């Protein structure tokens, strides 16, 4: 017998699947960020970060592509025309044409990423405290997922 959470997980994983060489798109990006959080047994319960009483609204907006400071979260350009996900370039890094997704903005952007370094440093300390893998061993997607607050669980 299957449970509804399994069926739902299957649907979400299918929606996050992208073809090789293609950028993920907004929906796939959201699901990739929540990938580890989808491992919870009961998807009917809210995600881990919503059970902690701090910064719920900013984190919810960040995880669901509803911010105004990450370029790929803006579907319209300054002239109110639709711009594809892959062409939403980081404005701080122009004229280099780098897609301004969460990974770039939070981890690699020379203008924005220093702002969240204190939070990442705190996460690294937490990982050490919980005896988890060192920060450098995680992929960029996992780092972004942790930065949007996946509560560290011992693996």
């Amino acid at each position: 017998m299957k449970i509804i959470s399994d069926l739902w997980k299957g649907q979400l994983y299918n929606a996050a699947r992208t073809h090789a060489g293609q950028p993920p798109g907004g929906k796939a990006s959201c699901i990739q960020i929540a990938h580890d959080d989808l491992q919870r047994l009961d998807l009917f319960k809210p995600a881990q970060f919503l059970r902690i009483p701090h910064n719920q609204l900013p984190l919810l907006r960040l995880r669901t592509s509803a911010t105004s400071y990450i370029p790929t979260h803006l579907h319209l350009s300054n002239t109110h025309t639709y711009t594809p996900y892959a062409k939403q370039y980081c404005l701080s890094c122009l004229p280099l044409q780098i897609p301004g997704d969460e990974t770039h903005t939070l981890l690699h952007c020379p203008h924005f990423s220093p702002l969240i370094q204190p939070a990442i440093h705190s996460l690294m300390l937490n990982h050490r405290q919980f005896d988890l893998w060192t920060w450098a061993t995680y992929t960029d997607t996992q780092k972004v997922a942790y930065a949007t607050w996946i509560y560290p669980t011992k693996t």
Partner: protein
Amino acid sequence: MPPFHMFSPFPTSNPRSYPIHEVSQFEYLGLILDPKLTMHLATVKAIRRASQGQALAIAVSYSLRYDKNSSQLTPTQNLSLWKVIVLPHFLQNLRHIHSDTDIKKMQTSLNLSLARVLHVYGDHTGLLEDTGMPPLQLTKYVHLAQLHFRLTITRPDTLPALLFNKLNSSLPLSKFHTSTLDYHIRYATHAFKIDLQTDPLPDMTSQPPKNHESTFRENY
């Protein structure tokens, strides 16, 4: 054949008879029934009620902004409010709505309603996942599987259960019309891979007893 008339029992009354007007829809136990049972009207009504509920939820959330020391409700509090006021309108008659288009309309309305109450206008799939709200199509499967167990195991002696068992027990899925409730019940049990002969009811499986108070404290 219509039009039908109702005659007065008093011969001197004027007029002698009253025409009975045929109605195109009527409400029965909160469900709007239309002549062909397409359930479109029930869908429209559910969306309208949910919209009114959403306005109420936003108003309550706004009115509580000066409660205690917090300037506004947290997303968790708004989510609880939304689940109490808006969500029941989407779920109440969900198992009777068989058109995929109607389910999609309701899902769109639910997504927008949740986004407005939480003030998060981003990707709906991510929002549903983070808030723990499964798509209505999956919730409908659960409701239909529950109905199946109610008709076959927990309440087998009622009139609907007797009719259900008598008419449908031996028919294969392909023999049902896709708009019937019986087809959707069979389809739901198939989607969940429920073996109707051997699988127990969910509440019959051994589960540790829950401490509701500690669960509440953990979540809120």
